[in-house]
């Protein structure tokens, strides 16, 4: 495997800068586009890591989310954001950031990070070795998510189904009464 660390670091720096711009900008549309830039950079990073399945899904979902967010943003009259920050929120965020760093140092400090491409979970090796003979699916990712881990996919489908159901119940047209009808009744 070729050394892809420089490309990944460049993408990582780009993503960090994009996230900071998304938080700090005053225009809501700029924030939405910055978040999408982070998502597209993540998709390219997946391609560099040799995961075309995830890259395709990330790219396609990112396009859809960008359309929906822009459409939602341009409906607002005032897209400028007040960047006033609460002191308590900033302090809490910093404390949690320090806690995460501290726990990370506690866990990985003694035994070190796992080698790149050597996952901690050993079950993935079994999947890679027995995936093709057990399922006859040439794409190992599909073999894992639809055969070995089909329960997870069922849960994912249920989550999507329930969220769509909720969104449509909130935004539906039929069966809703206007304020005038309520006042008249």
């Amino acid at each position, binding site marked *: 495997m070729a050394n892809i660390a420089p490309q990944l670091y460049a993408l990582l720096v780009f993503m960090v800068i994009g996230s900071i711009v998304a938080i700090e900008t005053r225009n809501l549309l700029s924030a939405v586009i910055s978040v999408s830039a982070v998502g597209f950079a993540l998709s390219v990073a997946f391609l560099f890591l040799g995961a*075309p*399945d995830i*890259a*395709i*899904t990330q790219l*396609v*979902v990112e*396009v*859809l989310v960008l*359309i*929906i967010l822009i*459409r*939602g943003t341009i*409906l607002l009259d005032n897209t400028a954001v007040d960047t006033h920050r609460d002191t308590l929120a900033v302090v809490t965020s910093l404390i949690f950031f320090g806690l995460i760093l501290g726990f990370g140092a506690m866990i990985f400090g003694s035994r070190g990070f796992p080698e790149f491409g050597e996952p901690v979970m050993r079950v993935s090796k079994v999947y890679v070795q027995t995936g*093709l003979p057990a*399922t*006859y*699916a*040439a*794409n190992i*990712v*599909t*073999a894992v*998510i*639809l*055969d070995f881990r*089909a*329960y997870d*996919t*069922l849960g994912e*489908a*249920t989550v*999507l*189904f329930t969220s*769509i159901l909720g*969104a*449509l119940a909130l*935004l*539906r*047209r039929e069966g809703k009464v206007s304020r005038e009808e309520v006042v008249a009744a």
Partner: protein
Amino acid sequence: MKGMTLIVKTITDFVAGFIVIFGAYIVLYGHLTPGGGFAGGVIVACAFILLMLAHGADVAFSKLPEKVAHVMDSAGALAFLGIGWFGLTAGFFFMNTFGRGEMFKLFSSGMILPFNIAIAFKVGSSLFLVFSALAIFRRRSFRAMIEDELA
């Protein structure tokens, strides 16, 4: 005029069918090449969303009515569950009981292809419904604004 300009509409008419074909390819060959039900379903949904953006909601609903999308959403989820239950006939839930077929061919790997198709129907129609809900919401809010102005 509803929707966007004539240029956008013409290009959309030309491209939308190809996007649907590409999405179907991603779904059907999900077990052989990168892709799968989720990505392919989102691509098909994007074709209809493109129609809705370019021509307005009415044209998109004439191609894929809202009721049909509702039925497809629920049918996809139920089909996924039903195929999973079919595995009970051979042993346990989600057991891959269909014939394995020949390796690297389209009809191989048993239940993975039907699973992919069910997920594509489910994901595609539900994401189309999200976007259509947004369009309906927008129409409602504009009408409410105009009514407020007239009142």
